[in-house]
Structure formats: C-alpha cells, structure tokens
C-alpha cells in the first residue's frame, strides 16, 4: 500500500508539534520515503528513543509500510 507524504507529515506533527519535516519520495513511486525530522523534543534523547517517537506517531496507520520509510532525526537547539 502506498503512503501519502501529507499523511506522514500530519501524523508526526500531531505527536511532535514543533517538528520541522522534510520528506522525500526516494524512488518517485509513492512507496519509498525518507523523512528528516528536526525537533526540540529530541534533545537529550538517544537516537533509539527519537526514532521510537516517530514510529509511535505513525504505527497505527502505517505499520505495514514502515519498512519503506527511512528516518533521520535532528535535535533542534
């Protein structure tokens, strides 16, 4: 099932309101995405915790598609 960039963005924002999100459709096939997410919420957390925050924002709706989403988290100073 294909993911929608707008869906991913709004789900992350719902959980992490200050998130600055850049999502790229890697292959142009609406199926493989990379997401770069910047937020103050990440500060002081391990990378594992940061990625779990993203997964937790998405998991209900997009669980089966998550393998095709590459995530990079950045702390906002």
């Amino acid at each position, binding site marked *: 099932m294909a993911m929608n960039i707008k869906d991913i963005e709004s789900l992350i924002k719902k959980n992490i309101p200050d998130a600055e999100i850049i999502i790229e459709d890697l292959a142009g096939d609406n199926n493989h995405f990379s997401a770069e997410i910047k937020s103050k919420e990440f500060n002081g957390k391990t*990378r*594992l915790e940061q990625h779990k925050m993203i997964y937790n924002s998405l998991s209900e709706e997009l669980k089966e598609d998550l*393998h095709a989403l*590459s995530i990079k988290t950045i702390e906002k100073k």
Partner: protein
Amino acid sequence: MTLTIQNIEEAKEVIKKNNVVLFMKGTKDMPGCGFSAHVVQILNNLNISYVDIDILNDNNFKENMKKFTNWPTFPQLYVKGEFVGGCDIVKEMFETGELLELFNTKGIDVKT
C-alpha cells in the same frame, strides 16, 4: 553463521550467547531486502563476526520479534544483548564512527 529459530525463547538465548546478532530479511549471504543488505554490508565492512537470523522463515516469529524489541521494522541489530537499532540508526552510527566505538567499547573484535 546463519541460524534458524522460531520462537522468542530461542531468540533470547541466541542474543545472550552471541556478541552480535542480526535479525534480518533473508540471510547475510542472500539478503531479502535493501535495508537488511545495507546492514550486512556495514558489518562485513567492519569484519565483524555475527549471527544472522532470517525472520521471513516464520511470520509468527517475525511479529513476536517486533513486539519483543518494541521496534516495527527489520533489520534489528543486537550487540552484547542490547538492541542497537535498525538500518537508519546503524547506518548513521557507522558514518559517524559511533558503531566502531561501540564495538571497541564492548570488546568486540573489529578487523580494520
């Protein structure tokens, strides 16, 4: 070394008894997914000796493993009994040198 296991109890044993364990799609000799292949490539690049387990063999085990690690995707890398991360995290740690540092700190042989 490629192992075939089907339940979480076995997985816990393997994680406990081996320094580096990779739960992946396919095997290290024949990865079934680009993300798994990438982590295999990184571990091979560091000449790490590790156990790989193909989670595609058994769908129940795959789902249970997601719950056990509390992580929704594969690959999943364990080092000295601890979950390190999936492809994105391992890749980032490799690029920043943190992965090498982790292996060094944990006393795991890296042949560079």
